[in-house]
């Protein structure tokens, strides 16, 4: 393998890392702390909860499936779920406008919105 290609490879990788960093920076700047967690099942909003009140509830998703949803210390997360992949449980707690927790198998989206419920991010 010649040196020129290795140098080009390194430039390429640095460019990719810079892209990730730039995207992360843009998201940090445009992200604001949210006020409500909106629950959507199959694209329809079914409930919204203020982030400043701690709750623990069972959300009934499609087909009688359940995701246990928690708001604690202003952050929302899924504590447990009976979906096969459990990705929603493993996702980080969300609190900023535009952040989401998604449970693909249950068609469930938990979305953080600002005051007035308008999702200004993106």
């Amino acid at each position, binding site marked *: *393998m010649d040196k*020129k*290609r*290795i140098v*080009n*490879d390194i430039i*390429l*990788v640095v460019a*990719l*890392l810079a*892209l*990730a*960093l730039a*995207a*992360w920076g843009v*998201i940090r700047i445009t992200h604001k702390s949210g006020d409500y967690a909106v629950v959507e099942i199959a*694209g329809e909003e079914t409930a919204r909860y203020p982030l400043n009140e701690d709750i623990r509830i069972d959300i009934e998703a499609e087909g009688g499936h359940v995701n246990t949803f928690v708001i604690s210390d202003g952050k929302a997360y899924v504590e447990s779920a009976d979906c096969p992949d*459990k*990705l929603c449980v*493993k*996702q*980080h707690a969300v609190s900023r406008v*535009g*952040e*989401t927790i*998604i449970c*693909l198998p249950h068609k469930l*989206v938990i*979305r953080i919105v600002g005051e007035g419920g308008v*999702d200004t*991010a*993106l």
Partner: protein
Amino acid sequence: MKTSTKKLTLLGISVAAAMVLSYIETFIPVSVAVPGIKLGLANLVTVFLIYKLDWKSAAAVAAIRVLLTALLFGNAASLAYSAAGAVLSLLVMALIKSTCRFSPVGMSAAGAVAHNAGQIIMAVILMGVGEIAYWFPMLVLSGTVTGLATGAVGAILISKIPLKD
């Protein structure tokens, strides 16, 4: 590769290898925190074929692999995700290969990032949730790392496995 029988055999073996890698991958949770992150082991086969044969062969093998994997271990949604990822990564890798300026390692890294970007685009389309794009930085990062890893293995295979007529 002169004889088409030999080429066909190689493509058949490639499909089998890609399928096994995709299957193995379902047992390795890389970052479960982010939906869509995968090691992209099957990318190894694509990298190898782009270098040893041509991008068309790589595309054919990837298409069969995506279809069969979805049929055997997936569903319609996973088909859409992996197809979007495969198409975008193939495009990017074919483009990079055509410049002749990068090694298989660099090509693989860019391909893996393109794969993740393709999946995000498909997720935005399917779920109608633009915020999935917030995963983009994480997926670019993980794609770079996994792409470098599979590219390094791919480079070894490219130099160690001779293809003669």
